[in-house]
Structures are given as C-alpha cells and as structure tokens.
C-alpha cells in the first residue's frame, strides 16, 4: 500500500523543506507591486544578450546558483536538478543543466512548472531518494512572445484578457535537513480542458483546472479554506481569477479574502492594462519571493499554492484546438 497517499490525488509528506530560494527578476517585474519581495532585479531585461533565449537561460542559471548559495551548498551537494520552462524542448533548463553537472530531470507543465518541480522534489526527498534537490524555472517576455505569438516589434493591440509574460528566473533547494518552511502535501492535478480556444485568454482556459485541483485537494485532505492563511494561484490573472472564484463558489467553497493570484499581482494596472502577468516564473516568483518572505515574517503559517499552466502549443492553436489546463498544488507550512 502506498502509505503516504491521502485520498485519490494527494500525498502527505513529513520531512522536505525549502532550505534556500532565490528570485531574480527583470526591471518591469522589479518595479511592480511585488518588486520588494524579489531577491535581485536585473536592470536590463535582455541582460546584455541579443537573443532572448540566451537571456532566459541566464536568468534560470543565475537563480539556480544563487539559490544554492543561499542554502550554503555547492553543485555537488544536490542529487537532482529539476527544471522546466516554456521554450520548445525546455532548452533553458537543459542548457543550464550542462554546467551544473547534476542528474537533470526536465519537466514541462507550462506556467505550473514551479509547483510540479517543487512537488516532485519534495516527494524525492521524502521518499529517501534524494538528500537535496535543486528546482528552477524561468521565463522571458521576448523569448516566449516570439515562440507563442508574434515578432516583438509587430503592431499588435493587446486585448483586455491578454497576459504579459513575466521575465525572470526563480530557484529553490528542497532538502530533508535544514531550516525553512516545509512542503507537507502535494496534489498533482489532472489535465482539464473545457474548450476555451482563445489564445489571448489563457486565464479562462486554466481556471477550471485550478478549481478542479483545489476541490480535489480539499476533499482528499478534509480541509477548507479556513485551514489556510493564503490560497495562491499562479497566473490566472484578473479574468481567470474571477472565473476560478465562481467555479469554487459553485462547489460551495468560498475563498473570500484568502485568494491571491500571482499573475494579477506582479504588475500594477498602470504597467499592464490587460489581465496581468503570465509565464513560468510568475508563480515561482510569487511562491519563492512573496510567500516565503511573508512566511519568514510570520504573516502566513500555512499556504496552499496552486499554479496553473496552459498546455497548448502555437501549432495546436493554429489548428483550432482548445487549450488544456493543468494545476498542481503544494502546501507550505512555516517551521
């Protein structure tokens, strides 16, 4: 029997902790409402590179190395490097893994990468398969924009539902021993597709997945929103958040003031008149930047983080397919 399973989707963990984390963001993100929670801001979002893919890789690699420093570790001290990003063949992750020299597990869950990575790392550590695991992700406005949408300088008018890809990298070390908040439960979500076909409205495509994972988590663990100090979604942004609260409400779950969304928080309305931010780093920065620091200050003790990802590709979108969503949840508890 799987002794650590709790209900149908959730696992219960005892030992893993986040013993070091680093968020490294671009200037636009640094100037936003969450700017003061990030560990470092790069003044030039291209980071001196002409090619944005190289810049994205730099964000991921530097965040990973700085997270190791924060944990007081060297590369050889970690057993696995789990990383994912939005680019084809997750190149930012794999190319960063070249110089680390650690067994690499490449993952893809679009903008839910942070929770998938942290959840897998926590399970590896809790199962005794690893002592320490390095987890990282990154996204870059230009790299993602030109892959999923259009050339950068093309005259495109963004719609009110559009989200702006955040630029930055974020990384964390999950370990069995050390100081830091614990990852106590993990609920990996199902792929949910309710037929939203508008690539300019990813929040609406992902909201059903977030609601599905949220309800699964509550029914598996027997908890309610009242058991958490904060319920953080990744990048549903303003439009998706509204739908998420409606869907949760229909199932009898009232989130009230406990719900916060990373995508809706990273930019001020003046910076981004559309729905908010997106990108793999969006939820990672909200968890490893905002949540960890507020937990350290004692404002939050128990947080449910459920980033969401939109799993379409430019090709499936051109072929008229809808946008499948996924949401993975982790529970963070203060020491």
């Amino acid at each position, binding site marked *: 029997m799987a002794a650590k399973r709790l209900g149908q989707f959730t696992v219960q963990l005892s030992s893993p902790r986040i013993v070091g984390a680093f968020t490294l963001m671009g200037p636009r993100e640094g100037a936003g409402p969450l700017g003061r929670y990030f560990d470092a801001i790069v003044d030039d979002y291209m980071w001196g590179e002409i090619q944005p893919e190289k810049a994205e890789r730099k964000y991921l690699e530097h965040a990973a190395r700085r997270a190791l420093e924060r944990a007081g570790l060297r590369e050889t001290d970690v057993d696995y490097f789990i990383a994912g990003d939005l680019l084809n063949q997750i190149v930012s992750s794999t190319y960063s893994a070249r110089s680390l020299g650690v067994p690499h597990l490449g993952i893809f869950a679009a903008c839910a990468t942070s929770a998938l990575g942290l959840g897998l790392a926590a399970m590896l550590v809790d199962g005794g398969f690893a002592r320490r695991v390095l987890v990282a992700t990154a996204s870059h406005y230009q790299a993602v924009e030109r892959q999923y949408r259009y050339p950068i*300088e*093309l*005259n495109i008018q*963004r719609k009110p539902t559009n989200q702006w890809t955040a630029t930055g990298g974020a990384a964390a070390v999950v370990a069995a021993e050390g100081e830091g908040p614990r990852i106590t439960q993990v609920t990996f979500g199902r792929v949910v597709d*309710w*037929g939203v076909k508008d690539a300019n409205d990813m929040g609406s495509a992902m909201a059903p997945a977030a609601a599905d994972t949220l309800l699964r988590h509550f029914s598996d663990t027997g908890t309610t929103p009242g058991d958490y100090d904060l319920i953080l979604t990744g990048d549903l942004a303003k439009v998706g958040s509204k739908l998420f609260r409606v869907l949760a409400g229909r199932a009898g779950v009232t989130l009230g003031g406990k719900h916060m969304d990373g995508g809706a928080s990273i930019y001020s309305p003046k910076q981004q008149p559309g729905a908010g931010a997106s990108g793999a780093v969006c939820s990672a920065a909200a968890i490893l930047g905002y949540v960890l620091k507020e937990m350290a200050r004692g404002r939050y003790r128990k947080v449910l983080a459920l980033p969401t990802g939109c799993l379409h590709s430019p090709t499936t979108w051109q072929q008229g397919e809808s946008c499948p969503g996924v949401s993975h949840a982790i529970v963070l508890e203060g020491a």
Partner: protein
Amino acid sequence: MDRDRDAIDGHKEYQRLVKQLAPKPNAAKEAARAFLVGGTLCLIGQFVLDFFRRTQPTEGEAIAATLATMILLGVVLTALGVYDTLGEFGGLGAAVPITGFANTIASAAMDFRREGYVVGMGAKMFLIAGPVIVFGIIAGTLTGLVAWLVSAVSG
C-alpha cells in the same frame, strides 16, 4: 459516451460564462483610436502623394513613389521601436495602412535575424506579409481573368 456528452454540455455552459465575465472592449474608444491613427497615416500619405504629383511625370509614378515612401516610413518607425506602440494604441488603425504592412516585414526581419540571415531573416521576413501577397496575387489574377474574358466576349 453519455459522460462525454455531459462533459461537453458542461463546457458549453462554461464557455458562456467565460463570454459573460470577459472584460468588454470599449468599442467606441477603440474605433475612435483606429480612426485617428489610420486617418493620420493616410493624411501623411496625401501630403506625400501631392508632393510626388508635382515632381513625377505620371500619376502611376506618383503613386508608386508614395507607396515606397510610406513603406520606408513604416520600416523606420519599426526600427525605432515606435510602431508596436502605435499598434497598441491604434489597433487596426496602425495595421491596415501600408505602413503596417511594412511593419510586419520589418518586425519579422529584425526578430528572426537572431537565427541568422538566411534561415532566420531571409526565411521568415514574410511570415505575416506573405499571405497578403499570396492572396492578393490570386485575387488579382482571377479578377483580371474575369475582366479579360468579359472584355473579350463584349468585344
């Protein structure tokens, strides 16, 4: 199968909800901005056209010189990083004039140059403008064929 149908019905309801809760674009404001930007670009075109009408021997050459000048303007504004902002403000008012057509070529050229001059810039320069030329030529040829046949029949 019933389960599938239930799921699809559930989705239809959700898709209606999405439409219902989506922020509504301000149609009047967007149309006014498109009018302003598109009208201004055409106004500039009229100044250029009038200039070339004075300096060029035929109307055809004046039009050709005007289009070339406007394309140059679109490319320069793109290279300066201004045209995408103009598009963000004016929507199709920036896209529809010939300067917007030039912007699609220049933006793709600048963007994909980063994959090299041949496989990047050269191969992808007409990523967005290509279909315009493809369907323009097909429509022009077919229209010309009809007109030619009509003129042949009516002698």
